[in-house]
């Protein structure tokens, strides 16, 4: 097998607090090649922090440590900040979890996309504007002319997410980290956006780390699924075999899913077992 695009070994993220140290990500290891890897897990299990460690975009208080965090043959944690910035802009892209928080609230969305085009594609003001318009169309936003001058609070939740995706597409990265990119999209737009991500991947070898809560989506869209619980990887499965999951947490997740074809009166609630946090991922 050829060299993976990203290789992570024993990644730990800690927050040195006042009383005790919060250990948010504990010994996470995985590889991403030219494939789509889903990352699921409960809220607060460290999915976003894992993604952000790869981008080196952690909160100031966080301390990341890893035996290896290699992207494209280079150790990310050792890179100087200037090179990291270049990497972030051109080689790795991240779609952050809250589009409304990540966009500049006092700059119109079109200009924000145009700005990215100017930085990455070295376009002039006029060309960047046209390009931004094209991109809005590409993420299936109706009526881009109208949406271009809107501010982030004036677009709908789903539009915000697609604007983030448009900004990311500009750079043609070789690794995409998508943190819940489609949670506010309806199924048809979601399918279109995922197709766009696929298109992007077909042109160049691209790894995709797809963080999501939507089990069905991950099952259909991804090649492999990593399941996290309390900062650890508890299970890694081929996406198609998700329903054969062995870990009680994954089984609990599947049972908690409301389904159209199997209506129930009350949803099963996950009972969390304290021993899960002690288990070490195989």
């Amino acid at each position, binding site marked *: 097998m050829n060299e993976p695009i990203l290789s992570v070994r024993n990644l730990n993220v800690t927050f040195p*607090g*006042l*009383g005790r140290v919060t250990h948010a990500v504990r010994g996470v290891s995985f590889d991403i090649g030219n494939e789509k890897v889903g990352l699921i897990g409960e809220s607060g299990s460290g999915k976003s922090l894992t993604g952000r460690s790869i981008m080196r975009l952690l*909160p*100031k*208080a966080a301390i990341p440590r890893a035996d290896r965090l290699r992207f494209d043959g280079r150790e990310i944690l050792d890179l100087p900040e200037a090179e990291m910035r270049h990497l972030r802009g051109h080689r790795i892209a991240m779609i952050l979890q809250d589009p409304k928080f990540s966009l500049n*609230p*006092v700059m119109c969305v079109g200009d924000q996309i145009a700005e990215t085009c100017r930085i990455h594609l070295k376009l002039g003001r006029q060309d960047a504007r046209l390009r931004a318009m094209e991109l809005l169309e590409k993420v299936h936003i109706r009526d881009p002319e109208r949406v271009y001058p809107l501010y982030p*609070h004036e677009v709908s939740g789903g539009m915000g997410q697609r604007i983030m995706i448009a900004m990311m597409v500009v750079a043609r990265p070789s690794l995409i980290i998508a943190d819940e990119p489609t949670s506010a999209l309806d199924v048809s737009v979601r399918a279109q956006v995922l197709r766009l991500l696929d298109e992007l991947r077909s042109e160049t070898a691209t790894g995709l780390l797809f963080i999501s809560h939507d089990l069905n989506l991950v099952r259909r869209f991804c090649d492999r699924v990593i399941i996290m619980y309390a900062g650890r990887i508890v299970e890694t499965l081929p996406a198609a075999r998700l329903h054969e999951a062995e870990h009680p947490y994954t089984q609990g997740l599947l049972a908690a899913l409301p389904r159209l074809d199997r209506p129930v009166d009350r949803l099963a609630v996950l009972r969390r077992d304290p021993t899960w946090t002690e288990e070490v991922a195989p």
Partner: protein
Amino acid sequence: MTDMAVPSRRHRLHAWLVDEEVTSGRQARAQQWYRGFRSLTSSPVAVLGLLIVAALILAALFAPWLATHDPYRQDLTLTLLRPSAEHWMGTDELGRDVWSRLVYGARTTLYITILVTVIVGPIGFLIGAVAGYAGGWVDVILMRVTDILLAFPSLVLALAFSASLGPGIGNAVLAIALTIWPPVARLARAETLTVRNSDYVAAARLQGASMGRIIRRHILPICLPSIIVRLTLNMASVILTAAGLGFLGLGAQPPIAEWGAMAASGREYLIDAWWLTTFPGLAILTVSMAFNLLGDGLRDVLDPRNG
């Protein structure tokens, strides 16, 4: 026994301050303060700034005890003496002790900084927050006024104001305050714009909260950190402007001890009596720098993104 009790009480206080199982509002607030204090004191530069500002406050409070002489007593037989054991920083052209005047001058400086903060903070915040929150023509009018004031260099404006108000320390402070609220208002408005459309403000509005309540309870806590930082960083320029006005004779009037005025009166004797300008100059420099360092430290502590 008492030896044991003290560390264990301190220990309990510490445990209370870091406990994750918060049980009262007081504890939650105390923990926030403690966290802020700890992160402020983890930066040596900020600690240096904090110490100097603390020294300034102490000097102002204990001026009568720290001073070796009466700062106002003139003695024409003792003019322009070099620094010595009797007069640590020498004497000025009227025979007054420079060290004592410097210590009393700390009061003036502190008075200026506190007064300016008390005037500028609320005015700047209110104007900015109301403009940002109300929007429309209110915003246009308030911001035009702000822009006009911003367009003038602040020293020139302060000069104009204090010239028309007449010389004196109170008027100088007023003049300075009038010139430095515009940037604070701009800042408050910018912050207000970013939160005005947030869901939590909408939730409060839908429940029937009045504009006053929203500004006080929702917008103020968001703006406060950046305003405090801005004011602290501004303190250096306030002190320098006050010194400048004093230097030009528009600030504190003789015989009040004010660092700027002291430096100004010493400039005629610069060659023979370097101590007259050097010590007040150093004091101005140190305190301005300390406020700057403290402001930088506070920026890191109060940044909501670190919360």
